[in-house]
């Protein structure tokens, strides 16, 4: 099933708790290099919680606890000797709601470079433009790089957030329902972009939109009430799911 690819990230027996409430139960899941891995499931099934573990974003939520291991290139990112800041440089994230900084378009990206210690102005400029191009936004904004990012449309803002993420050259890209607040046309642009980015990055995407998972992903995991019910090639999940609950969800019987 996964012969032609190598494992980029791996969750091993991951349990996660908000206070006493268990949000994830014994999750084992591999994210393969240069593939798109989709995570689907009804609201509250733990899919966003799971993806936010992959760049240690959930650490910001007070009163949580975690057991198990999460490996990035075979090294446990939860290890105490590893700095969360370092992990987030290697594992980028695009959020559910576009969240550009209240700065201009250029600064939204240059900020990401500057906080990572890059000072050379020319180099920064090149990287900003390159990132905007990769995110298929450059042509739309090249004449107004110094206008507020908040003036862009929702879809443009989301692509700006993708560009910001790409600028620091992460190895893995996490998308947490990136199209949840976007219209169908913007959604299609983001999906095309994801397929394009797959060549250079390992991608994991959480989505409540099953068609989206079917369109963009190579592998799909189905979450239900904190458990990973089934994980397989996307075609298999959608054409011949092995579990009754997966089939019910895919065919729209609940969720």
């Amino acid at each position, binding site marked *: 099933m996964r012969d032609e690819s190598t494992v980029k990230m791996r969750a091993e027996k991951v349990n996660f708790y908000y206070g006493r409430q268990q949000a994830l139960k014994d999750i084992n899941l591999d994210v393969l290099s240069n593939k798109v891995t989709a995570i689907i499931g009804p609201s509250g099934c733990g899919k966003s919680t799971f993806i936010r573990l992959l760049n240690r974003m959930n650490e910001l939520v007070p009163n949580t606890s975690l057991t198990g291991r999460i490996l990035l290139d075979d090294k446990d990112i939860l290890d105490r000797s590893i700095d969360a800041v370092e992990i987030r440089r290697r594992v*980028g994230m695009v959020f559910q709601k576009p969240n550009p900084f209240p700065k201009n378009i250029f600064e939204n990206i240059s900020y990401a470079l500057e906080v990572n210690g890059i000072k050379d102005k020319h180099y920064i400029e090149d990287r900003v433009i390159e990132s905007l191009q990769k995110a298929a936004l450059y042509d739309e904004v090249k004449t107004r790089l110094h206008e507020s990012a908040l*003036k862009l449309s929702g879809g443009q803002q989301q692509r700006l957030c993708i560009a910001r993420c790409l600028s620091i050259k992460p190895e893995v890209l996490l998308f947490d329902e990136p199209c949840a607040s976007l219209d169908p046309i913007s959604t299609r642009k983001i999906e095309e972009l994801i397929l394009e980015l797959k060549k250079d990055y390992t991608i994991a995407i959480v989505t409540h939109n099953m068609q989206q998972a079917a369109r963009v992903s190579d592998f799909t995991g189905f979450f239900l009430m904190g458990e990973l019910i089934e994980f397989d090639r996307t075609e298999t999940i959608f054409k011949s799911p092995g579990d009754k609950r997966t089939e019910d969800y895919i065919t729209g019987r609940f969720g």
Partner: protein
Amino acid sequence: MRRNITEKIGFGIVSVCMWITVSFLFLIIFFIAVKGIGVISWEFLTSQPRNAMTAGGVAPAIVGTFYLVVGSMMFAVPLGIATAIYLTEYSPKSYVLNLIRISINNLAGVPSVVFGLFGLAIFVKFLGFGVSIISGSLSLGILVLPLIISAAQEALLAVPQSIREASLAVGASKWQTIKKIVVPAAMPGILTGVILSIGRVAGETAPILFTAATFYIKGYPDSPFSEVMALPYHIYALMTEGSHPEKQTAIAYGCCLILLSLVLIVSGIAIYMRKRERSYHHA
């Protein structure tokens, strides 16, 4: 039918109350303006008092108030903002936080004359700063700290969590996030608080009574350790000391008018900034 009449009476009562309130504000402004405008002139604003406070200008009091405002802000603004950052961004355990919050609220409720006596004991006597700009500035600074802290806290809390996450997700440290994203985004709100506290400091009398103010000095203060004249104290002194009450009263109203204009201008700036901040967030 009956319900309609009750509603009309109720509405009538609240609107009358509203107009009474508003009329107080306008009465104050009108009254002070009428009584004070007579003495206002370029000379009044820019020259020294003459003839035992019965003629000349009040420039030293204006300058003194300016020094006290600047001094107190230099002390209270960095301290207040830093405290607010600690409380909102590095939230300590909740019971500690509650204790701190209660202390700050209590500080806000302390009568201003207490800050005057405290300043006299600590800054003037114990630290040996004497009756001086620096003692007065520190006393005033403590007085407005709660105001600045709560304004800054509110502004910081209004910064959406999502942009904090965005910053952390590109590998920024927490400190970088606070310094370069959170505080700049909160700046308009923080500045509004600072400006309002400037208005407060400019008008306070009790905290400088024993720590900074004097009825008369020759010329202008030349160091932070000099005594100063200040507008609010000058008004108080004109009305209670001296031997020419009728002339002094006119000058006191002039000072009132200057002080009132100053505070109104400062509040106006704060309102303008808040409006701009709002339109920015909805861009």
